[in-house]
């Protein structure tokens, strides 16, 4: 599936700044040895669907965005969802994240069945148990970077775990720019702040929908490395929707959708 050669040939500038030939994907450097090479993990799952079906419209204009999808997202891993445009990636992610409801089937997050939840409970679940990174406009323009990061906790009226926050902030690497407004940050920095926000509330899982879609290649790599390190260093579960194979190559496993069906669920090869 992935060819590392494309990376080394096109990646002319190494954002890490050291060896231009080094592969920036740390998980491929060796720590994947203890994981099975293929298929979904058998360990604990953070989210799963049972015959999840989502149909838009009716009659002539009927679109089946998800067609009886059953999938389990392993905890503590970086899962990529791939597929061509219109294949149902975003729909799957939205249903997993409680932003959208299924036409039929079931979704479990943290072993809670989502369709039974009220809007209030769903909101609370999103706030406390889920982190989001969208393609763009992730941050509130009126809040500073730091305020954006602590937003979910502030909404919950809860004090952030200071040690954890310090750690997240350190990893995000914004330094003095934390007090700045999003408009004063680069696109890559903005997305890193978004990831930091997603991480800060220690959610069960982070959903990222094309988080690098709007970024230039170097900024994209910064964000991907940041996501990767969140999994490796902080043990965060992450689900990332992307149609960029290079971005997917940072993941531990890749789920491929086509026409609302899963056509493969493979582990990354080293």
């Amino acid at each position: 599936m992935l060819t590392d050669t494309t990376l080394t040939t096109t990646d002319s500038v190494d954002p890490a700044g050291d060896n231009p030939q080094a592969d920036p994907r740390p998980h491929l450097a060796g720590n994947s040895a203890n994981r099975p090479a293929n298929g979904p993990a058998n360990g604990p799952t953070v989210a799963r669907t049972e015959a999840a079906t989502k149909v838009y419209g009716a009659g002539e204009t009927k679109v089946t965005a998800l067609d009886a999808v059953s999938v389990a997202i392993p905890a503590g891993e970086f899962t990529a969802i791939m597929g061509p445009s219109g294949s149902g990636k975003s729909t799957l992610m939205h249903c997993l994240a409680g932003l959208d409801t299924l036409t039929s089937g079931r979704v479990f997050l943290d072993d809670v069945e989502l369709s039974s939840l009220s809007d209030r409970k769903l909101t609370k679940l999103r706030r406390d148990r889920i982190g989001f990174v969208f393609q763009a406009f992730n941050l509130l323009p009126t809040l500073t970077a730091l305020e954006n990061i602590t937003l979910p906790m502030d909404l919950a009226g809860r004090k952030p775990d200071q040690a954890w926050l310090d750690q997240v902030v350190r990893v995000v690497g914004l330094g003095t720019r934390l007090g700045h407004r999003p408009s004063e940050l680069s696109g890559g920095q903005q997305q890193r702040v978004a990831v930091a926000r997603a991480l800060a509330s220690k959610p069960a899982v982070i959903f990222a929908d094309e988080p690098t879609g709007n970024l230039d290649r170097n900024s994209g790599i910064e964000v991907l490395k940041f996501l990767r390190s969140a999994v490796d260093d902080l043990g965060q579960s992450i689900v990332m929707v992307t149609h960029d194979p290079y971005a997917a190559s940072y993941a531990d496993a890749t789920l491929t959708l086509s026409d609302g069906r899963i056509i493969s669920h493979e582990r990354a090869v080293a």
Partner: protein
Amino acid sequence: MARILRLSLRRLTSDKRRAFSTGFAIIIGVAFLAATLVLGDTMRAGFKGLFAEANAGIDLAVRSEDGIGDAGDEMFVRGTTDEALVERIRQVPGVAAAAAQVEGTAQIIGADGSAIGGGGPPTVGAAWIDDPELSPYRIREGRAPQVDGEVLIDAYSAREGDIALGDTVEIRLPDLIESEVVGIATFGERDSFAGATLAAFDQDSAQRWFTGDDQVSAVLVRAEPGVDVAQLDALVSDTVSEVVGDGTEVITSAELTAEQEKAIEGDFLGMVTMMLLAFAGVALVVAGFSIYNTFTIMVSQRSRESSLLRALGASRPQVLSAVTIEAVLVGLVASLVGTGVGVGLAEGLRRLMASAGMDLGMESITINSAAVVTAVAVGLVITVLSSVIPAIKGSRAAPLAALRSTAVEATSVGRIRIAAGVFALAGGAAMVVTSGQMAADAAAEAASGGPAMSVLGIGALAALVGAVLLAPLAAIPFGHLLSRVTGALWPSGRISGRLAGRNVVRNPRRTASSAVALVVGVTVVTLFATMAVSMKGAMDDIVRRTFGGDIVVSAEWGSAGIGTDLASRIHELPEVDRAADLSYGLARVDGDDRDIVATDLNAIAGLTDLGVESGSFAGAGAGEVAVSRDFALENQVEVGDVVPVSFVDGTSLDLEVGAIYSETDFMGNVMLHSDDYLPHAGQSTVDVVLLSVAEGIDVSDAASSIEAAAGRGGPTVETRDEFIDSIAGEIDQALTLIYGLLGLAVLIALMGIANTLALSVHERTREIGLLRAVGQSRRQLRATVRWESVVTAVLGTVGGLGLGVFLGWGVVRAAFARSQGMDSALAVPTGSIVAIVVLAVLAAVIASVRPARRAARLDVLDALATV
């Protein structure tokens, strides 16, 4: 052009709700304006019809040329004419009939013991005119009064007072008389002449009470059919100068009607319509601000669309005209609707007045094209003007700039704007402060206070403009303050407060212009409240300082007065220690017609402290006059000087200045002795009796005795404290009306806030989606919108309160510079301020309900997908 028009139309119809709420502000303002104009025209037409009807049978009127006061003014007193003229005029060839008009004031007491009518329409006492054409009254029942002790009354009084033919009624002239009702008459087909009551007597009785024997108010003349009125006028004039010489005029009935119309315009209609127009003006200014704001947001939201249009080749004028056409459409439709509503409102008020028994001759509503054109034009012009600036700004968007930009934020406030704002505010404030000093100086030199008032007015306007310009600057700290306050008050609300605060700050200009509409309304309300409270305080102070007595007996305004008979009976009551009568009137003093007070100069000294500067009241008697310091300065007189004083009956007296005093609030500038004034005043009357109670007598017991002595329908008897309270009550009553009218402006402003809020929320759809996705509950979202509304409203309210109190202080200082103690009487209307703030916050919460609910209803995914 046609295509641009179609685009504008499509935009309007595609967003009906916004078009409606934009138009609504204008509808309210225009409706108010149209109602005022139409009602004014209707009342004018009503009175015109009534006067024309009253004078229909008259061709000429002969009367004294002279009078005291300004002709046409309500207080004007015209001199009388020799009765002998009537007979001589009858003999002039071409005269079909001539009758004596004898008029005065007479209050009819109803069966329940209270006086009928008054408080506006006159209470007429007159000699009955037999000629059915010279008199507009028709006898419905009974007959004309023929001898002393008989009276004919109007049908309105008979109905209101529950009086029937043959009853004996009491009438105040102002002394009480008893008469038998021998006739009941109607004014043409109506029960009364615009609510005026009529008590008609035989001519001898009427002359005895109203004009003096051998005198008449006027001679009414009717020409024989076919006689040219102009020629008759000349003939009658000749006869008149033969009999009485100069000083008597002959006027036609058309002139008489025109004069009466002018008088009602001057003292009633003009004032009412001017005041209502001022309020309509405030409402329209506020509406203008709201529209400006709405169009600014609309244009900014459409900047992408405009840029696209420009990128596709539309010229700037085309983009500009698209917005302008939209404004014209909204303005035109709203103004037309507003005018329609206004006309309906006027008709409703007309019916209300009719059903309340106010028959002002308004059978139907009068819709002049001038009123309609004015209302529509004003609404249209305000809408277009308020939208042109945002439109020009919008059309400036470079073809691609707006396509690239995402969230346009203008946190900065222009330097020129700040400079202009500081200049206007500081300059205006300085002028307001200066005007007080100017007024005080003018008062000290007895010069006109006009320039001071002009400086005050210009200063007030400049300060308001400055506040409007600087409002965005205030929005910034305000937004931040809000974040703190909510954090401190309740930590769980901290984030909603913070988000709201940031939204307020993110576009301070928008927040400010939303708040500014409220500033205008609240400023005016606070200004009036401050004036009222200060006036109440000052009146209280003045009464306590100047009036040392215990009881004030006062005739109701517009009534026949107290009467010398009752006044002397009050003086003789055992409960009364000292008493002094006051008669308010007019006299020509040292060449100028002036309001005067006639009293017992000696007795008044024991009851009041008027701040005597030289001479003395004590011992002053007939032949003396007391004048104010201002008068003394202006007329260069000192104690001992002689001042010529003449009266309406033509008598002239030389009076010696006995005292010069400083307190003018109750007594005015000239005080005469009653003995000098009453014999020459026509129908003599006392308006007020001031008195102190004898040792050991309870004040309320004394008041009861006086009331008993006064009999039915008598004057108001109040203790000193009650008197002060009733003055305060009158001020409060006026204030209530003003509050009601200005509430309208505040309502428009709050609708503007709601409108702005709705548009802002719409603009932030994506942000709302994001917030909801990361866990903002619907409640928190609503709270955020609500807080934003409240902060905007509080910003406007606080600004208006500050400005209103300051300007109120300025007005109190400048306007009352002449009256001692008023200049320092500024009182802050704490109660009103608290009420205004509470109401503003409540209204802001209500204003936020719809935008907040709409925000909370947004589907998270849809919102996130919004560009």
